[in-house]
């Protein structure tokens, strides 16, 4: 059941990316280019998305479980540290280099845009590199911790 809702949610989300223009890197770069010919549309996309989500989430706060019976998993992390800052900085630079962030890139690749598929392949490679580094680091710290 959860998968069915998730499919529908992904579909609506993806249609939103297309309707809003966020799936088009040229428009995204037009928004990020404050010193050039600026396109403010993306501010309206973010405004609409945050408005709908905050109203919906406010109602969902009263529930403990989803319609499929899974508990509602709200993020628990609150720490603002170097990892969060460094990661967000790298992401922002990458976003500015090509105009793609993860959602729109997947939608554009699925639409058959070859350049988007190249970006998605590199993005997945980046995520896999993260997984390998983090697994190695965890193993190293496990080995360094003396067992009682």
């Amino acid at each position: 059941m959860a998968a069915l809702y998730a499919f529908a949610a992904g579909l609506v989300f993806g249609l939103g990316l297309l309707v809003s223009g966020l799936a088009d890197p040229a428009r995204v770069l037009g928004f990020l280019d404050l010193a050039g010919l600026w396109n403010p549309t993306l501010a309206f996309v973010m405004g609409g998305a945050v408005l709908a989500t905050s109203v919906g989430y406010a109602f969902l706060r009263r529930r403990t479980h989803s319609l499929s019976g899974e508990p509602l998993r709200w993020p628990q992390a609150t720490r603002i540290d170097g990892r969060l800052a460094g990661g967000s900085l790298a992401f922002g630079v990458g976003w500015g280099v090509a105009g793609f962030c993860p959602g729109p890139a997947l939608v554009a690749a699925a639409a058959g845009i070859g350049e988007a598929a190249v970006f998605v392949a590199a993005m997945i490679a980046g995520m896999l590199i993260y997984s390998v580094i983090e697994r190695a680091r965890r193993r190293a710290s496990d080995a360094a911790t003396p067992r009682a």
Partner: protein
Amino acid sequence: MNVDWSAFTPGAGTAGGLLIGAGAVLLMLGAGRIAGISGILGGLLTPERGGSWRLAFLLGLCAAPWMFRAFSELPAITVDASTPRLIVAGLLVGLGTRYGSGCTSGHGVCGLSRGSRRSIAATAIFMAAGFATVYVLRHVVGA
């Protein structure tokens, strides 16, 4: 500041934004999860954290352009970046969103809507980095 009025579409932007929000709310209502694309994809790449809901959400996302095409012509998607540039950008976005625990959707849409200070900080940083990168690339080095 010069505004590109010919490309300014606040109506479609707001409507699309509301749809994005509806998708995020539907994922929490139906499956109890935050709609963060990088986290959903990243979790799928980490076998122990996999889940059919992740795959289903991404399939729905990828079905969107096909559904859209059934009713009207797909809006223009213009990519000017060269292949090396796309690869550098993809690697940065992949690594950055995993270390930063989120992207435009998880931090920018869902996090801001929850009033999370952590997501507000992340969003401020990646937005500033995006503005600065485009400024440097277009107006300083001219690439």
